[in-house]
Structure formats: C-alpha cells, structure tokens
C-alpha cells in the first residue's frame, strides 16, 4: 500500500533542532566587529521635544555613534502605509504613519528618539541614560470617547479631530428589519485585546559587505520579502543587493508583520553608515510599548429578532482605538465588522465604525486581528436574546446557522482583502453536534449541573460559534527541485514562526512526488532562495504557500513522468511514483530512482531537448480569488468560586473545520496555542494605561500571561468541509483557537453564577472585576 503523508499525524521534524538549541534565531547571529544598538525611547505619551543633547553619551568609552532625527538627513522618514483603505463608498481614512526617529513630537510612550551604537549593549544602555531631552509635556489622549470630544488634545495637530477613519458598511436595510421585529435588544459592549507577548521579542542584525556590495539583514519578521524590497528602495540599493533572512522565530502572532518598524528602517542604514555589523535585540520592557499590540473597541449594538428567535438584523456602531498611528490601515476594525456576522444568516446589517487616534502604542493585528471583538458582540447578543425569549443558547444558534446548501454565501460587504465577504463553503451543524457530544452537553445540563447546584457549587457551561476568514491573497510562490541525491528541495518565500511549515509543507510534497517526508528539505524566509511573495499572516501559510508548493510539486511530477515515459517507452498513465522511484506500473524492476532521473535531466554532455528545461525543477504560484472561511465551535465547563471569583476550567472542547487537514497533530497544536491566548485575553491579560498614557503593567510580573497551570487540557475535534477555492481544499487555522474564548467565558460564567439580571458585557474579566459586576447586579447604584 502506498505510504500516505498528507493528512497524517506526523511529529514536527523541526522540533529536535528547536528543542536541542540547534536552531538559528536572530540573537544567535554574531559577526566580527559587530556593534550593538540601544534606543532612547520617550517616557512621555504626548510631548513636544524642545532640545536633545547627546554629547554626554560619548563620555562612555565604547560608544561608536549616536543618531537622532536631525542626524538622519534625507533618510528621515515616516514608515510606509502597509494596507491602504478598502474600496468602500464614503470612507474616511487619515494616513499617519510612525516616524523612523521622532523629530518634534512624541505620540506614545516608547517611541524611539535616538539610537546609540556601542561595543556592547551594556555600554549602549549606559549612554542612552545620559542623553538629555527637554520635553514639553502635552495633554494626553487616552480614552477613545473623550478623544472625540471637541476640547480634546490632538494626537495629530494637522487633523481637525482624533478621527483616524470612519467606515459604514451595510447589507440590506436594518431599519426595515427592525420594524418587523418582535424583540429588539440593545447593549454597550466592551472588548479589549492585549499584547501578543511572543516568547522571542523582535531583533535585527544587519551587515554591509562592501566588497560584495551587498546588505544582509536577519530580521524577526513574518514578511521577509516585502522587507527586502522596501529596504532596497529606501536605501537606494537594487533588490538583488539586499538579502533578508527570517530565521527561526519564537512566535509571530501578527505584530511581527508591521512593515516597517522604526528599528527595521534604521538598523540597516546604520550598518551602511558605519560599515560595521549592527545588532539590536528588543528587550521585554521595550516590547510592551515599542511592538504593536491590539486593544479595545466600544460597541453599541442592537439585534432585532422574531419571537421564534430568528435574527432579522443587527445594527452596530463602534469605536476602535488605533493608537498613535495607523500604518496597518483598517485591517483590525474591518475584521471586527465582518466577523461579527459569524456563521449566522443575518439578512440585514448596518455597521459603522470610527477609528480613533490615541497616545498609545500602535494597534495592528494580533492573532484574531479584531475578529474577537466582532464575535463577542454577536455571541453575547444571541445569549441575551435566548434569555429574553426563554430559549436554549444552542437552539438559537442552530436556528440561525447558514444552511449547508446555502454556500457560497454572500454577506455583501467588503472583507480585509478588499474582496466581497463571501463564505466559500461550510457546514455548521455537524461541528456544533460534535462539540456538544464531546463536552457532554445533554448529560451536564440534565444531570450533572442540577446535582452540583444542589451541593452548593457553581459550575456552568458555555457553547459559542464563530467563523474565521482565512487564506487571503494576493499570492505565494514556491520552487521544488529533485536533487541528484534524490532529496527534494522546497523553497518558499513565507517566513515561519513555529507553525510547523517544515513538516506540513514536506507532507504536501512527499504526497505528490512519492517520496518519504525525510527526503524533503524545506527552506523558508530567505530572500536569496526565493524572492516572490508577501508573508505569513491572516492564517494563510498553509492555504496560499501550501497550494503554491503543491502546484510546483505537480509540475515536477509531470516532468518526472514525461522523462520516464521517454526512457521506458510507455505512456505516462502506465507509470507510478513511489518510494523515491518511478517505474512501470506492475513491473517494479522497470524503474529508475528520482535522483538518477535528476542527473539525466541535467547532463554534462549531449544536449537538453529544445523546448525543455534542465533539471527536475519547477516554480509555481498560487493566488486565491478570495479568502476561504473556516468555522468552529468552542465549549467549556467552568466552576466559579462565588466568594473569590476564582475559576477552574473543568473541560474545554474545540471543534474546528478548516477543510482538508494536512497534519492533525500540528492543527491540534495551533488550537491549543490559540485557546491559551484566548484564555489569557478572556481572564488574565489587560494592558493597563493610566490617564497619562503610561503602561502600568509593562512586565510579566503584572501583565498576566496564563501559564501551563492555568490552561486546561483541550479536547480538539475536526470536521472537514473542503474549500472550493484551492486544489487542496484547505482553509486556514492559525487564529481559530483564540477567537471565541471571550464570549465563551462570559456565557459559561453567567451560567455558573446563575444570578438574575447578571450580564457580562465586557472582556477581559478578572476575579476583582467579576466581584464588582456581581455587586452592581445585586445592589444597583
């Protein structure tokens, strides 16, 4: 029987290297004569810079150079706008991007003002402490609602207000839907998402080789190719003179795709100026303010339903905090706006948002990328409607699911990829059924919960659903080559940050070329090896790069069959590729190894046939016409101590549908990690800023990432509804684990506490906040 690779639970091949310290991370790059950078960052959230005196910095032996904005000359610039606004009618968007070094006004704590280069990082930090800056502190814009009041200070004084963007998207006509409704519910909902806190912070090493006239940059980026192209353009170099390597990276989660961070613009420039290799490694204190994060939205949402619980329409107006700049365009609030519609058939929808500038770090996508906010709104509205109608939370969801025969389902608004929000495929009821089965819903509700309640315990259950738009374009590419050794080289441009690409991509190729997975070598994230592509984001690696690799492998397979057909004088259909050999079907002794064929395809004498290429190699690309929509259901049983409000998660279930599964083990890992971040978001993590825009918990002592002690065992199930948008039928899965955990907590904790009139309308929660909310319910002010 043919050995299968695609769809198998294969252990990650990269793990032995990672676990034994053999993998290269940026901080492992150490070069002769390398110097180290440290940044002077603003201690103020909003202040004018009157004067900078860096002369004292040079008193420290070992300081090589100090640069401020005025030292950069013509190289001073703002970063580029990464994502332009989508083609939506009457859209307002004010582009204001980050400064390479602050010239005259700081707009958030942590913004870089000067960079010191020294023989080591200790000296560089000593020198940073001796740079004197005169600041004129300005009124600070912290709260989104106050930011829109006419008397508010302005983050960008050339704009009339702190409005960064305003977008309205409409499907149908909500007002008409409302008139037909039996019940209408309206709430103010608050959702705050935190910092990704990847295990590895950012880092850059840049080296200019004057003899080769080439710049090499090691960067913790999720998008090495756009970084290469952008750097070449900024530095006046040819693209072929710049090599960007994104080696192993300790977690991306979105913020590592913010092109360009100030440090990414300045470190390579400094390497050129000083003709010495330069290293900058972000420390955790910097990461909390200098790496982008996600934050809060305030939604005023209304849902109109029939008395049977059928949704007629949703009306939502929300504020989105974009921070001091908006280089990532509107990706996050657009995701919120679109993902709110969820797996439900919502005929009429009005959604309006205002993105607001504040004196806080820049907001860009972090795993989920705004989807959480939208999912929270619709899931909470459904829970409240169910309560109002005396319905079960499961029943109201089932009743409103888009039916399996209704796909492709057009939601008639524009998604983050600028394409219409059309769900390509889906089948939601089996997912829900499997989740209910796994959590033991019926037994819990009918038997377990009544017994525990009688014992005085507070144990609740929650079940929520969501969709995730994944695998958006524009494209990725790959090159697949059979080498004379018989090993297969696979090269793609996307970066990798722990997703298991070295295994899952190899599985795709092994399947196509009939070789063992051990014979497939995958290279990612090195622009000298492959220089077309965009990057790893939006749960698109497997969908877009995976399909590009599949296409390239198919081309190589065709070349193998053509050559072997000539060699054995049989039709291609009569050949089989298996075990690294191609042979005449049923006659295994009439065969040749792929390695031998590769040798023959690249002869030293004779001639390669006109019209053919040498070697067994192919490059191909894949660009989906639009994103593919994955879906899932999470369920949880949680016990709450009503006195301390501490929680104990007793069971956690994820059932997810991301089309055809390449490797269920890696997929389980994606879900586990996502859920852990989701639990952090729901109950532990909150970026706390004071009224001066100072982050009060910029360390892991006070910013609470859940640990293995807080994360329960997670039971993961899969359904497979194939995507028609790509030949492999796959959908993305990178963000699914994190997306619906907030509303899941809200529903399950409400269920556990079982208090009349108790509604959780905000995330994150904490024991202290829950206690306050319960108190407010029991004795309203």
């Amino acid at each position: 029987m043919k050995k299968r690779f695609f769809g198998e639970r294969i252990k990650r091949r990269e793990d032995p290297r990672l676990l034994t310290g053999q993998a290269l991370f940026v901080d492992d790059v150490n070069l002769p004569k390398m110097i180290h950078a440290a940044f002077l960052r603003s201690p103020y959230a909003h202040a004018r810079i009157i004067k900078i005196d860096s002369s004292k910095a040079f008193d420290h032996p070992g300081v090589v150079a100090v640069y401020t904005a005025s030292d950069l000359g013509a190289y001073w610039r703002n970063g580029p706008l990464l994502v332009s606004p989508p083609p939506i009618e009457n859209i307002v968007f004010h582009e204001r991007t980050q400064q390479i070094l602050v010239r005259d006004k700081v707009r958030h704590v942590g913004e870089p003002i000067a960079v010191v280069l020294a023989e080591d990082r200790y000296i560089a930090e000593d020198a940073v402490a001796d740079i004197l800056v005169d600041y004129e502190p300005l009124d600070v814009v912290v709260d989104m609602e106050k930011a829109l009041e006419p008397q508010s200070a302005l983050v960008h004084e050339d704009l009339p207000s702190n409005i960064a963007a305003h977008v309205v998207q409409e499907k149908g006509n909500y007002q008409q839907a409302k008139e037909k409704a039996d019940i209408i519910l309206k709430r103010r909902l608050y959702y705050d998402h935190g910092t990704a806190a990847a295990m590895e912070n950012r880092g850059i090493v840049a080296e200019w080789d004057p003899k080769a006239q080439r710049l090499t940059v090691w960067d913790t980026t999720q998008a090495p190719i756009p970084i290469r192209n952008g750097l070449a353009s900024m530095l006046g170099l040819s693209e072929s003179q710049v090599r960007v390597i994104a080696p192993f990276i300790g977690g991306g989660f979105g913020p590592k795709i913010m092109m360009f961070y100030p440090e990414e613009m300045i470190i390579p420039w400094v390497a050129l100026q000083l003709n010495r290799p330069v290293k900058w490694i972000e420390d955790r204190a910097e990461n909390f303010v200098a790496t982008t994060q996600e934050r809060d939205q305030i939604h005023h949402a209304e849902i109109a339903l029939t008395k049977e619980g059928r949704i007629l329409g949703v009306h939502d107006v929300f504020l989105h905090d974009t921070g001091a700049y908006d280089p990532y365009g509107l990706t996050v609030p657009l995701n919120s706006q679109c993902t709110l519609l969820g797996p439900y058939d919502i005929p009429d929808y009005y959604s309006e948002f205002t993105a607001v500038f504040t004196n806080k770090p820049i907001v860009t996508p972090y795993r989920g990328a705004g989807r959480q906010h939208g999912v929270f709104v619709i899931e909470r509205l459904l829970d409240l409607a169910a309560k109002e109608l005396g319905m079960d939370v499961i029943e109201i969801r089932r009743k409103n699911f888009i039916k399996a025969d209704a796909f492709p389902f057009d939601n008639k608004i524009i998604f983050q990829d600028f394409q219409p929000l059309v769900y390509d495929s889906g089948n939601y009821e089996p997912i829900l059924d499997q989740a209910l089965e796994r959590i033991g819903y019926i037994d819990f509700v009918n038997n377990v919960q009544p017994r525990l309640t009688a014992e005085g315990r507070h144990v609740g259950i929650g079940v929520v659903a969501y969709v995730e738009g994944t695998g958006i374009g524009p494209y990725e590419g790959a090159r697949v080559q059979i080498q004379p050794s018989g090993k297969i080289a696979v090269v793609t441009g996307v970066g990798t940050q722990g997703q298991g690409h070295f295994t899952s991509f190899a599985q795709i190729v092994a399947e196509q070329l009939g070789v063992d997975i051990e014979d497939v070598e995958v290279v990612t994230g090195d622009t000298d090896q492959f220089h077309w592509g965009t990057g790893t984001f939006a749960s698109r690696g497997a969908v877009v790069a995976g399909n590009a690799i599949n296409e390239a492998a198919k081309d190589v397979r065709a070349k193998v069959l053509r050559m072997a057909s000539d060699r054995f004088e049989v039709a291609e259909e009569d050949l089989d590729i298996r075990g690294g050999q191609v042979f005449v079907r049923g006659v295994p002794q009439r065969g040749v190894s792929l390695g031998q064929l590769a040798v023959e395809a690249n002869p030293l004498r004779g001639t390669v046939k006109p019209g053919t290429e040498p070697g067994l190699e192919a490059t191909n690309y894949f660009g989906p016409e639009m994103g593919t929509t994955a879906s899932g259901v999470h369920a949880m049983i949680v016990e709450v101590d009503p006195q301390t409000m501490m929680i104990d998660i007793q069971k956690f279930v994820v059932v997810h549908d991301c089309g055809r599964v390449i490797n269920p083990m890696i997929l389980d890992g994606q879900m586990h990690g996502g859920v852990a971040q989701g639990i952090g978001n729901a109950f532990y993590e909150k970026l706390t800023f004071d009224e001066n825009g100072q982050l009060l918990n910029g360390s892991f002592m006070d910013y609470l990432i859940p640990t293995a002690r807080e994360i329960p065992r997670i039971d993961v199930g899969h359904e497979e509804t194939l995507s028609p948008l790509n030949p492999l039928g796959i959908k993305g899965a990178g963000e699914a684990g994190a997306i619906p955990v907030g509303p899941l907590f809200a529903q399950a904790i409400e269920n556990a506490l079982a208090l009349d009139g108790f509604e959780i309308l905000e995330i994150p929660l904490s024991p202290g906040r829950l206690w306050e909310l319960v108190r407010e319910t029991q004795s309203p002010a």
Partner: protein
Amino acid sequence: MKPAAFEYIVPDSLEQALSILQEHGEEAKILAGGQSLVPAMNFRMLQPTLLVDLNKLEELDHIRRNEAGDLLVGAMTRHRRLEFDNLVAQYAPLLHESIPSIAHPQIRNRGTLGGSLVHADPAAELPVIALAVDAQIKVQSIGGERTIPSVEFFQGMFTTDINPDEILVEVAIPESSARTGWAFKEIARRAGDYAMMGIAVRITLDEDGVCEKACLVYLNAGDGPMEAVEAAKILEGQPRDDQAFEAAAEKASQDEIDPLGNMHANVDFQRHLANVLTLRALDLAFQRADVDRGENL
C-alpha cells in the same frame, strides 16, 4: 534591561563578608538568591556599586534544632530546601504550608529565607510567616550580633531594623505549644503570582477547646506584614464558633488591615478577600488544633 556597572565580590567567610560591609556601608548590596535584586538591577531601579555575593557561605545554609526546641534556619537556606525538609514540616508546619505559594519552583530553587525577610516585600509570604510564628531574627556585624523579634524587625515597606553593616544570619522559630492549629491561605491571579490577599493564622486552644491565643497576619494588606491584634482578641477566650469567626474576620478585614489596592485587586476586593480567607483559615486552624487536642472530628 541591562544593569548599570557594578563591582562584585564573593567572600569566602562570614567574617570577610562582614568586614566588606563595614568598609563599604550603603554602597554595598548583598546578593543572596537574587530573585528580587537582580530584576530590580536589570530595570535599573537599583544601581548598587558593589555586590557582595553570599552564595559561598555554607555556614548560612542549615536547618537544625537547638536544645530549647527552636528550629534554627540559616539565612541562605533556599525556599526549595524548606519546602521538602522534614524538620520544617514537623516543627514549623505553618512555614512548610506556605512555601509552595512562593512564586515558582525555579524561583524557590534560588530564593533564600534571609533574602526574603530582609527585602520585606509586603506581598511576600515569609515575613508574614515570620510574624505569625514569632520568629527571632539574628543579625550580625563586625561589632557583634543581636536578635530581633519579628514584630520589631519589620518596619514598613521594604524596610527592616537591619543596619547596612549587618547580615541576617539565622532565624529561630520557637516550638509550638500543644493544641496549636495553623493555616496559610492566599489567592493569586495565577499560580505563583504575588497574591491579591493572603493570611497566616496560628491559634492555640486550651484543653476544653477554648482559644487561648490567636495570631492573624495578612500579606499584601498594608506597608508590611499586617497583624490583626484586635481580631485575635475577639477569638481569644472563645471556643470554635462561627459568630466569633465572622466578627474577627470583619474586624481584621475592615479595620485592621490597610491594603493599598492595585490593578489586580482594588481595596474593596482585597478587604473582601481578607474576610473570606480569614473564615477559611480559622476554620482549618481550629480543626487542626482540635486534632492536636485529640478531639475526634
């Protein structure tokens, strides 16, 4: 997050360490387990010019009993050793019970008893335990040694009665009298975090089960370990009684502690948790004392 430059000395003997302190005074900082000091240096909140590393002083790492029955613990004894030591479990059960609440195993592998007491973090467990067990704290300088009762040793936020030329060398924990019950309870956001609130309780009953002596000490409840003296008085002279418990918990949580509140728990919630934990701790401590009394529960 790199520390400012500093000198570093590793003395071979306590005497040498003391003379270095004598010479350098407040410029010098003692490095014990380094679990608070080193992060503070990395953040440059502390910039000592000299670090005196006590990690070679084996004479400060010991657990033994003296003739009077006191448990003597050397200042450089790691939390991890306290956690698994049989003498500690037998003769200082309250201390034993509190150790797993101190941070994480990695931190307990390095952190020391002396370091924690001298640091005097109001949110730390060991100062509270020291007060609850009436630990006697021995400090030494070139000029000699003195023993300070815990109640005098802790003088406020990160402040103790120790002088710059002194080193905390040993802690003596008196043996409990018969019919003593204890309990340690704390509530932290995550396992290993500084607790939002915590309490150590020690009570001694007479032969009839009436409380002779009670001691309640709270962590993260003020500018140091906070003892609730009035609450203890409410319990003394009372048998195990829910109403007395409630009155004591009310008194301690509302009047005697002075929590500062923080982003994880505001003052109201801290007082509420103190109340809840007091009731839970008293219940357990009385149970244990009753067992010790031979009462079959």
